[in-house]
């Protein structure tokens, strides 16, 4: 029998502790142990990006991270994006541009887009498209998503000027 391990990490700024099987993924732990069900499992193999989270400042697929690897690490998920009831500009722009239909890919796209704008506040459309190439959406055809990201980037830049 495998031994469950005790893990301490920081998720969205809050210290968390959980017990996990060594085989469980970070996505499993977020959803099943911590009740953070915003991150989705699409493919489970790192192809679709629906489970995207930011781990110690790096955008990763949480389905390809073991939960035990999170020991002592910082994790940012979609649940940490809004400021209380105030939506993040990316979330607001996704609504305004209708950049979602079924919504399954949306949390991953928002987290990936946030990582992009953290690293590069003024991306070209081409840079945004390449950055988000690992986030699959089967509804929108991507164009509205890219418009929303570019619009949110513009708004965020104006705020910080």
């Amino acid at each position: 029998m495998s031994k469950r391990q005790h893990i301490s990490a920081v998720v969205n700024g809050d210290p968390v502790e959980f017990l996990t099987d060594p085989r469980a993924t970070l996505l499993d732990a977020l959803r099943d142990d911590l009740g953070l069900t915003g991150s989705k499992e699409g493919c489970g193999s790192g192809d679709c990006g629906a489970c995207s989270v930011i781990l110690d400042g790096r955008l990763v697929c949480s389905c390809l991270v073991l939960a035990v690897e999170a020991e002592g690490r910082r994790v940012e998920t979609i649940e940490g994006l809004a400021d209380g009831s105030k939506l993040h500009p990316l979330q607001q722009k996704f609504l305004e541009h209708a950049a979602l239909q079924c919504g399954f890919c949306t949390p991953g796209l928002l987290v990936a887009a946030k990582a992009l704008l953290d690293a590069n506040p003024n991306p070209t459309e081409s840079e945004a498209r390449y950055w988000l190439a690992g986030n699959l959406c089967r509804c929108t055809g991507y164009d509205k998503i890219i418009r929303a990201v570019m619009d949110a980037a513009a708004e965020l830049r104006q705020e910080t000027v």
Partner: protein
Amino acid sequence: MSEVDFIAPTSPEQAARALLAGGATARPLGGGTDLLVQLRSGRLPPGLIVDIKRIPEAIGIRQEAGGFVIGAATPGITLSEHAALGQAWPGVVEGANLIGSTQVQGRASMAGNLCNASPAADSVPALVAARATCLIVGPEGRRTAPVESIAVAPGRTSLAPGEFVLEILLPPRPARSADAYLRMIPRTEMDIAVVGAGVNLTLDANGVISDAHVALGAVGPTVILATEAAAAIIGSKLDDEALARLDAAARAVCRPISDKRGTSEFRTKIAGVLARRAAVIAYGRAEKTA
């Protein structure tokens, strides 16, 4: 529940002992972008996972003895952020950065790509052309080996039980040197190489190629170091005749399979084309360093 167990040692020797004790199903974990997929699909039976990311030498890029030392678990995105590495080895960095998405780049390492032993591994041809070596740690101690000696067949390596790659070492760079890597995929992102070609060369003061190495991916069971292809351009200024010789010599060493991503004939033709184009890019970069 599974039988998998997990440890995260902080020294290479602890990791090697654990891998040896763990037996045939024990695996080192770097970025996990291949390992976790294999475990979850059932392709790899559950066993001991040894996370090497808490070993200080396994993470980061260090400039040592005129060359670069890259920790085995260093993610691709770290390579793209390292200005000096990109200056000295643009082909190595562009090969590694072609792998997967931004998310995959946040985790996937060159050593993992190497030890997964796919013939189409995008980071390997440029490393082979760079004459990079691996520092391997095992129960018997440490040894170094050329990158091209690690993969022996698709999915199989020459590493002995308990051994793992701790570092990849790029040699010192002579003046007027540069490299390039190109791959062919039928789309723009998120695909596996149909063919890959890495070229690394050095020019003399007159712009004549004084040293060259060419490596080809996805045209054989392992990455091919194409010695004759390199010889075809040494002594030239990469004129049309030299490029034609390079193309022919690159095609001559290909022994690809035909599969859904390309026929043997197509792959062989493309290998010649990519070798030529990568050589032109590397030559242009080497001229600019002068």
